[in-house]
């Protein structure tokens, strides 16, 4: 019952978000601000995570292969496959849900409890569109870039770990990451990323927009934004994988 109510209201909010903006110039400016806040400012954490994840994947793969029948270049191959298929699109999106989702819910939620959304509505502004649309567009556009950067850095992290620890030589690693490369896998990853970006922004905005009460509830909304975004991402990840890879 409750779930149906939320789903209905969520889609209604999305419809309002995507109705025609009153001033394109203002929306454009807001979108650029959001690209900076939600995208560029996430670059650091994405880079850090990617390098270390790639490094760990490489070391673990190598230490788990003890059969002499499996050639060493498989280490590079595995690092590339897990990075492109799962680590960069999904794990990075989950991390972004934590960072970006909580920011969005807290920001919109505090505007709600401090009557600023009412103030927008009173002026005759489409508050959902004005507040949410620039965030959705910003993330849908910028997250694929973040994920591509993450792919490179993760594979590079693997290279570093492999060569520095002497587990696998640079030459063999590079041979591995070029083996059986399927460009479609990158497309698949980017489709996932775009869908996840949409989920993160809209689910979090929904939590913020319908916050009731005070600062305590803003905190609760912010937590919910992350949890629900994560759950929906994981479900969609499963569905999309079945749809796109089988």
């Amino acid at each position, binding site marked *: 019952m409750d779930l149906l109510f939320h789903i209905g209201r969520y889609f209604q909010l999305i419809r309002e978000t995507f109705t025609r903006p*009153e*001033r394109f110039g*203002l929306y454009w400016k807001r979108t650029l601000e959001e690209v900076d806040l939600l995208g560029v400012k996430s670059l650091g954490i994405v880079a850090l995570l990617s390098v270390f994840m790639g490094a760990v994947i490489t070391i673990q793969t190598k230490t788990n292969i003890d059969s002499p029948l499996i050639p060493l270049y498989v280490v590079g191959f595995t690092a590339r496959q897990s990075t492109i298929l799962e680590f960069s699109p999904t794990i990075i999106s989950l991390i972004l849900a934590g960072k970006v989702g909580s920011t969005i819910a807290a920001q919109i939620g505090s*505007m709600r409890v*401090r*009557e*600023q959304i*009412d*103030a927008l*509505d*009173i*002026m*005759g*502004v*489409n508050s959902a569109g004005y507040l949410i649309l620039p965030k959705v567009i910003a993330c849908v556009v910028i997250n694929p870039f973040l994920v591509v950067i993450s792919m490179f850095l993760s594979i590079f992290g693997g290279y570093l770990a492999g060569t520095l620890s002497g587990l696998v030589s640079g030459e063999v690693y590079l041979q591995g990451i070029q083996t059986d490369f399927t460009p479609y896998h990158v497309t698949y990853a980017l489709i996932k990323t775009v869908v996840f970006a949409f989920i993160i922004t809209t689910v979090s905005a929904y939590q913020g927009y319908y916050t009731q009460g005070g600062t305590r509830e803003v905190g609760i909304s912010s937590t919910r934004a992350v949890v629900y975004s994560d759950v929906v991402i994981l479900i969609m990840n499963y569905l999309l994988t079945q749809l796109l890879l089988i």
Partner: protein
Amino acid sequence: MIEVRGLSKRFGRTQVLTDINAVFQKGKVNQVIGKSGSGKSVLCKCIVGLFEPEEGEVLYDGRSFHNLELEQKRQVRQEIGMLFQSSALFDSLTVLENVLFPLRMFGTMDEAGMLDRAHLCLKRVNIEGKDRLFPSEISGGMQKRVGIARAIAMNPRYLFVDEPNSGLDPQTSILIDNLIDELTAEYDMTTIMITHDMNSVMEAGDNILFIHEGRAWWKGSREELLRSDNKELNDFIFASGLMRKVKDAMKR
């Protein structure tokens, strides 16, 4: 003129407003008074359509608000200026940008014209040289005044002010009252002012509505108010010793 007919509102099981009927006149400051929690802010939000009342209707110069489509509602809303009890300034925008906001959103002026208009409104509320500060960097009284400047930026036909002088010193408070009076007369607006400041009631109250437990308990002018023998109204008005003295003086 704004007319409220048979308006009722509840939240879950709590009935907050019951069958409110009232007429708010044009060119006047119409006051709504009542105890804390009596439902004044909720009434105000029902009138502007932020809350959907269960029953009743609101007429803006004859236009029934609740029957309008969302788009038409937004049109009417562009004729409304509102100061919220919490000021509700956008805290990511500076003082100047706050006042510019409605102009940029709906105005037809060029950038220079908008800036002029925003500065004029800020000057009108005695705020100058604070353009670049953020709402968190100015005092509560200044926030209220910036809120008023933002509310009047678009030359509204209807002005709502929710407790413009709560928490302000008497001097600033009088300044704001006078300002609202002047603006109302100047632009011939229909102004609805929520207050529990007896000073403002005594200054400006021609058309006073007393809300008690969510009902329109009493209506009248300030002279009638002082003479009224309505018990709840008297309890509210003469809670302070000063007001009792005023009443005694009037009797003599």
